[in-house]
């Protein structure tokens, strides 16, 4: 959603397009037909008519271009907005109401198939999606990178620390496809739990270094004791704005380097983040503690994005707009050096199992 301002960024499910929703610009044009990537041409509908047959279950029809990968749809929307063909609030129009031309009882059908979307727009934006189009724009989709884990056990490189879901890395390649997050959680959440339990049974509890515990406890309480207090929420908002602006949908090296400088400045401010009040349910304090992690993640994202001098999946670089097969041969690993700074390592990918490779070839 792009309007009203306070719900900007709220999710509008891909299901709207799956049910036949189309994207239009301010001229009423269905612009997704204008730019279909070559490698998707054979899988994409030629006409709106064929697209409609696809969403209504015709196995012989190809999918409408609105259902192309999210990164591509996001860039097309951005292009329309930049060309001055956007909606009044800086997005484009997503229209599901039009299906009334195709089926009887369209409003009931929409309410039944997309109940939460109907509800969300009605209540938060005074828009009846069975009658008028929604205004939408691209937002943060998913974190494809994350904690490096063993694919079978989900254990990280820290023995006994397991990760599953969006915080783990690797499963979704360069772009997660719709619906795959839930399957990821169900399969790998269970595995993480299983192997964590196994690990706990097979290993005795490690020794605890009390000095380290004391140090982290002291560090945690520092925000209460600082005199010159920076507002932690303010730092967080600045970080969000900067990352959106400089390491967003379309990236260029120069801007990302600016972001690295910006991060250094924000890290200095983070050291002064201060809070007041008590230690129970204190969101200001929690935000102050989160800031360190937010800075780490932002820096890792930025450094890895600079390192990847190509466009692949969700990463689109204006200065390297095409996919480079060389970059498909390794993963980019961010690790901590002895002095605490970040180091980028290219880790070659192992061979893909033959049967899996075959599936990939079949789907090309």
């Amino acid at each position, binding site marked *: 959603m792009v*309007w*009203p*301002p*306070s*719900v900007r960024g*709220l*999710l509008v499910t891909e299901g709207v397009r799956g049910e036949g929703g189309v994207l239009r610009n301010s001229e009423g044009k269905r612009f997704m037909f204008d730019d279909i990537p070559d490698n998707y041409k054979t899988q994409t509908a030629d006409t709106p008519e064929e697209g409609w047959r696809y969403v209504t279950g015709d196995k012989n029809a190809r999918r409408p271009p609105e259902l192309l990968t999210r990164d591509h749809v996001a860039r097309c929307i951005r292009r329309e907005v930049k060309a001055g063909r956007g909606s009044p609030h800086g997005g484009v129009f997503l229209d599901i109401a039009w299906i009334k031309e195709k089926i009887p009882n369209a409003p009931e059908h929409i309410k039944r198939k997309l*109940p*939460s979307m109907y*509800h*969300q727009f009605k*209540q*938060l*934006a005074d828009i009846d999606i069975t009658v008028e189009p929604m205004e939408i724009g691209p937002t943060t989709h998913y974190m494809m990178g994350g904690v490096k884990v063993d694919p079978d056990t989900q254990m990280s490189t820290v023995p006994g620390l397991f990760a599953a879901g969006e915080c783990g890395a690797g499963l979704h390649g360069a772009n997660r496809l719709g619906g795959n997050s839930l399957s990821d959680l169900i399969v790998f959440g269970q595995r993480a739990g299983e192997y964590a339990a196994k690990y706990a049974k097979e290993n005795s509890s490690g020794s605890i270094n009390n000095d380290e515990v004391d140090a982290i406890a002291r560090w945690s309480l520092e925000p209460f004791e600082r005199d010159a207090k920076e*507002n*932690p*929420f*303010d730092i967080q*908002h600045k970080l969000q704005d900067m990352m959106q602006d400089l390491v967003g949908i379309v990236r260029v090296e120069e801007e990302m380097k600016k972001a690295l400088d910006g991060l250094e400045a924000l890290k200095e401010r983070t050291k002064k983040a201060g*809070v*007041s*009040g*008590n230690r*129970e*349910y*204190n*969101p*200001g*304090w929690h*935000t102050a503690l989160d800031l360190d992690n937010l800075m780490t993640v932002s820096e890792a994202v930025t450094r890895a994005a600079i390192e990847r001098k190509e466009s692949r999946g969700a990463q689109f670089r204006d200065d390297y707009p095409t996919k480079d097969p060389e970059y498909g041969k390794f993963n980019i690993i961010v690790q901590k050096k002895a002095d605490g700074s970040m180091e980028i390592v290219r880790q070659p990918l192992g061979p893909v199992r033959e049967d899996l490779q075959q599936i990939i070839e079949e789907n090309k």
Partner: protein
Amino acid sequence: MAKATLRIWRGDAEKGEWKEYTTETDDGMVVLDVVHRVQAEQAPDLAVRWNCKAGKCGSCSAEVNGVPRLMCMTRLSELSLEQPITLEPLAAFPRIRDLVTDVSWNYEVKQKLKPFKPRKPDAKDGTWRMDQQDVDRVQEFRKCIECFLCQDVCHVLRDHSKHKEFIGPRFFVHTAALEMHPLDTEDRLADLKNRDGVGFCNITKCCTRVCPEGITITDNAIIPLKERVVDRFYDPLKRMFRVFAGGER
């Protein structure tokens, strides 16, 4: 846009006080947005639970001008900004801090309820077949997001604190979803009558009114359960038969 003043209950389990915060508002804001702005600008230690900001997680339940609501789904445009907007924690549960209450009683109640017990698969492919009509009936109950606004508004819990004898509207909805499930074979009627206190509900429909998912709690869940209990335990003929046969009471 106009300024808004929030009058928020601040305190812990023992004591607290009302505090007023005035801040700028923007187009289309919901109450939770204003709370976040107050938090960022004036009261960083203001405790409030929230998560999705889309009416789906059920975390930001509070009482807005005395009415149990989700703060994320309450738009400023439907409230008067002429006077302060009061915000206080749910009254039916113990307070922890500011707008945060301890709702764990609800999870304890849920643990006690008999779970789904499907009949053996009886379709050729080793699964089941259900009529769409039967699916639709329970689908409504499954919209529940467990915000516990219905529990909060219910006088049996709110005013009479019958937490030990009454499971509340949320769990009648849950029970109804199981009892009316076309595959379920469990029998929960004796529990409803004796342990769950379905008789305490006197159908004032306050729960239905506050449900952010629009579930017709009283009419579609509680009343049919009451009818089933009455039919089993209070039908004079059946009752007489049971007395002689020594069945469940």
